């Protein structure tokens, strides 16, 4: 089974802090994605990566950056956390040969 893990289930940070959210997948998937999920808004794509060292902006990239130095790891970075970035963050991976995405358990981030 594909396993996608995220570094923390719950995280509390203060406004202005730099925040790193880590995602690791164990199935050699080429594509990886970061979403945020907010009540009533569904999932919105922040950034995605087609392969190592490649990244593309999603629908709401402002205030975020990403890093993909190794194929299995995709990091989401909040350069200076703000309260409006309080949300559930979901990472997903996908093999090029398949259409479905595999999701991690999510990180619920609270910015105070």
């Amino acid at each position: 089974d594909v396993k996608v893990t995220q570094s923390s289930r719950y995280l509390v940070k203060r406004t202005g802090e730099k925040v790193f959210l880590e995602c690791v997948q164990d199935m050699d998937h080429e594509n990886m994605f970061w979403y945020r999920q907010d009540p009533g808004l569904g999932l919105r794509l922040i950034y995605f990566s087609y392969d190592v060292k490649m990244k593309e902006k999603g629908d709401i990239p402002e205030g975020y950056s990403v890093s993909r130095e190794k194929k299995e790891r995709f990091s989401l970075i909040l350069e200076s956390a703000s309260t409006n970035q309080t949300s559930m963050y979901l990472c997903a991976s996908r093999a090029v040969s398949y259409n479905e995405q595999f999701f991690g358990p999510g990180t619920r981030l609270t910015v105070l």
Partner: protein
Amino acid sequence: SQQGEEDPQALSIQEGENATMNCSYKTSINNLQWYRQNSGRGLVHLILIRSNEREKHSGRLRVTLDTSKKSSSLLITASRAADTASYFCAWEYYGNNRLAFGKGNQVVVIP
């Protein structure tokens, strides 16, 4: 971004009944997928239907796709308490690997 609408937003049913939820999208698609999310957890893929298919079954799930109306429906037959979850449709844009997600349906199955 493309945000679809699923109707109804929340559904409460008795165990053994069928649950139907709908999804609409606005663009040309490669495929449409349905995912389930249990409370506070990640999403799990349920079923995929390609743009050239009209209906697909998987166990107690039946999904339909009408590309002329840009809509899909998910039917869960003989529901169980364990089916209590949020259900999201997601469509893959024609020409790329991105998914756009609908706002989700919350389904509560009462034992």
